[in-house]
């Protein structure tokens, strides 16, 4: 995932469900509207949970990829 300025990173590596989602819900509130949040996860549940969460909450999943058991997501926070 390319590094860009003004990206907040949430590293949930090693955490298992439900903690990555709990921390994601907390972290997104600190991201400015239209800001970007990068989420790093190792819980396989994140592969289904995070895209579903973005869709449900109205945020945009810009990019996702996996590399040897680590999953990366780039999310744009949408408000309103």
């Amino acid at each position: 995932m390319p590094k860009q300025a003004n990206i907040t990173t949430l590293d949930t590596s090693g955490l298992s469900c439900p903690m990555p989602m709990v921390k994601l819900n907390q972290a997104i509130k600190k991201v400015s509207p239209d800001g970007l949040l990068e989420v790093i996860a190792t819980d396989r549940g994140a592969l289904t949970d995070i895209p579903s969460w973005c869709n449900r909450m109205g945020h945009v999943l810009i990019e996702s990829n996996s590399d040897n058991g680590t999953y990366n997501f780039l999310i744009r926070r949408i408000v309103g």
Partner: protein
Amino acid sequence: MKSMAIIIRDDSYDKILTPLGFAYLQGAEGCQVDILFVSWAVRALTEEGASEISIREGHCEQEPWMRKQVANAGFPENIRDLITAVHSTGSVNLYACSMAAKIFGVDDSNMIPESSGIVGSSWFLNEKAVPADYSQTF
């Protein structure tokens, strides 16, 4: 999902983790979660009861291992701490069933501050469980 109702009756450590985990998850998302603690589980709403929660049967010998695994997963391993975390989402209400409270000696004097109080099961079922988008019993 905007609201969820959960009824917890089993206070065995391995069985109470799941509903509290679900409540933590949904509460963090802003979903309104209402939990009714019935039977033995009502004791989880007291300091003494929460501290005494353990695996009741089947896997008792593996409790230290399970607690370590839970902690390694980043989850509050201690039920008292978990209740605090769940409540801190601001979206979860923790109610004690009045009948269970009477049976197990839970009252206003020994309930933890996170508790939303003692309520009748009829009120909970009709005002919380029926209107909820989803209800679960554990």
